[in-house]
């Protein structure tokens, strides 16, 4: 096993630390409800992390398809924090600007933008931001039946959240602190 990693693959270091005791048993893959849709299975992905295949990893959709169900984390015979490893890959992708899966990333980003602005999420505002960012003129129509249903039930609120507490300063400080000393 190669122990030295080129500079480019160093961004994987925190994830490598989490999965280095993997014995490639495949329990995580067998437990994962989303494995059927992934381009690399979770077991395969951990192997790629150990091999430092940075580009292949960040070009894959595997970690975006993790829905944080924690089945793999619960069952891994080595007790590895696998869901956290998937999340860490999402965080690295944001930090390194390796944005492959637009829908998920825009979803997360717009959600957080709504939180930063108002302290609370108003689903209507956040979905509008998401649709605008996706720049896909027909996308909202896919959600029309749901939108109409929610509207009929009085569940679409066009008002801003009641808290009205901006978290701008907190966001800035958290990002600074994380960067200063990750």
């Amino acid at each position, binding site marked *: 096993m190669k122990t030295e990693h080129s500079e480019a693959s160093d961004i994987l270091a925190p994830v490598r630390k989490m999965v280095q005791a993997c014995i490639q048993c495949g329990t995580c893959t067998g437990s994962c409800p989303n494995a059927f*849709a992934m381009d690399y299975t979770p077991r395969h992905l951990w192997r790629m992390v150990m091999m430092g295949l940075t580009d292949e990893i960040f070009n894959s959709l595997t970690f975006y398809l993790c*829905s944080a169900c*924690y089945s793999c984390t619960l069952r891994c015979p080595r007790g590895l924090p696998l869901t956290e490893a998937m999340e860490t890959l999402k965080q690295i992708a944001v930090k390194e600007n390796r944005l492959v899966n637009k829908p998920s990333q825009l979803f*997360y*980003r717009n*959600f957080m933008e709504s*939180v930063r602005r108002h302290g*609370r999420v108003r689903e209507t505002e956040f979905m509008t931001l998401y649709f605008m960012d996706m720049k896909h003129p027909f996308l909202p129509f896919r959600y029309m039946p749901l939108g109409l249903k929610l509207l009929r039930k009085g569940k679409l609120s066009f008002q801003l959240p009641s808290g009205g507490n901006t978290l701008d300063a*907190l966001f800035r400080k958290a990002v600074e602190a994380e960067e200063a000393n990750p």
Partner: protein
Amino acid sequence: MKYLYYPGCSLEGTASEYDFSTRAFMSAVGAELVEVTDWTCCGASAAPAINFLLSLVLPARNLALAEKMNQDCDMLVPCSACYLNLKNAEEHAGKNAALLHKINTVLEEDHLVFGNKIRVKHLLEVLSKDIGAEKIRSLVKKTFEGMVIAPYYGCQALRPYIVFDDPEYPQSMEPLIEAIGAKVHRWDMGGKCCGASHTTTKPEVGIELVSAILKKAKGADAIVSVCPMCQMNLEAFQDRVSEYQHEDLHIPVLYLPQLLGLAIGLTDKELRLDSNLSDLNGFLRKSEAAHHGSIHS
């Protein structure tokens, strides 16, 4: 019984019936809920996908606010995603003093201090452990004799923090369902993933997961859930899933406090049954009949 109450964003928006029914049920069983003043978003699944520290600071902010109010109460959380994030802050802070310090450095910005003094509890833990099936049985006014209920737990109330139930074979809802006279639907999907935000970002994947759950729910009169995200996924896409599977997979989905609330005599209005996206009419008619049948037999 008194709890600090953290509703979270969904319960203020699309899941308002979960908020109403939780408050109504808790008050009917004599528990007091005190809402955390000026609470803000816990970060949901978005913060952990963007920034680790932020994903702990957001829940810690709310725990710090709660500590300022009362340190002798537990915090009651109905949403499983909020529960997980708040629990994450609790667990990380308990294990890692340096991280706790770092969280507090950020919270200084809001003049808040997180001392990790409050225990976070999921609504299901409170219903099944603190209140318990016996107490609920003693309050039942309307039994659900002959009706079959499928308990759906989802993921994050069960995993990764193993607090009140078996994360592989969850059972905590069963005594509650039996306490109101109903039968438990036997299935193995109670702790399987609903796909979370996949239904929005990766609909072709989300639909598969929802299909698998709805298919195995067949035979039950209703599904009960304990999370706004699960509830939305299970009830909002039933038309699409039925069309896609060429099979009628429509089924009523209720929040657990809505079902238990009906049994102890709360009204449709108090439980906001008209806000559910799935069609509850057939279910309500059948439960009326079940109730009258059980009185006369």
